[in-house]
């Protein structure tokens, strides 16, 4: 995928540490979302940030968006072993109600060591 490139591709941390995952994209967006995928399973929506927002919080998640740099970051604080999964950013370009497909970036594999 050319949209939503995550950086790094794999991240290994100790339980209790914070995990930061970055994503860049190339086109104008309506919103950017982060999804989580446990191995070979379905994707679960985590958090959404709109193009006119700069920061959003949800529990231990914090997402930032810099539209001038076309980049986003997802911070997971106080990580747990259960956070081990792949994380994808996905962008939606259409305006509300129009073609609403998501364009996913390559996933970041997060491993949280107990």
């Amino acid at each position, binding site marked *: *995928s050319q949209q*939503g490139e995550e950086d790094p591709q794999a991240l290994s941390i100790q339980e209790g540490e914070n995990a930061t995952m970055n994503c860049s994209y190339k086109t104008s967006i*309506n*919103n950017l*979302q982060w*999804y989580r995928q446990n191995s*070979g*399973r*379905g*994707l*679960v*929506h985590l958090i*959404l940030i709109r193009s006119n927002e700069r920061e959003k919080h949800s529990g231990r998640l914090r997402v930032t968006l810099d539209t001038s740099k076309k980049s986003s970051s997802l911070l997971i604080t106080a990580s747990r072993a259960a956070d081990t999964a792949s994380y*994808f950013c996905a962008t*939606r370009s259409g305006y*509300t*109600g129009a*073609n*609403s*497909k*998501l*364009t*996913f*970036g*390559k*996933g970041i594999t997060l491993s949280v060591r107990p």
Partner: protein
Amino acid sequence: AAGVIQSPRHLIKEKRETATLKCYPIPRHDTVYWYQQGPGQDPQFLISFYEKMQSDKGSIPDRFSAQQFSDYHSELNMSSLELGDSALYFCASGIRFENIQYFGAGTRLSVL
């Protein structure tokens, strides 16, 4: 709460065979999306339907077709299967004017 149901969960086919994947969206969701995720790859959008009409088309091969029925369930039909079609196929549903898509557990297709 009801989730998106996909069937079958696993499917094994031979080259040149056909396959039909089914998706039952969350009740009252008006939009269905199909995505393909190859091994170690990100999900790629294939096609979507809004109120039973095709609304957007992505990188879906001509060998594939899809439709949404009057009860809102959707089927992805794949013919002349190739080894490269082996992947996880996800269906997601949502409400068109909202932003979140709810994904099913996926169908893992293996083409031998």
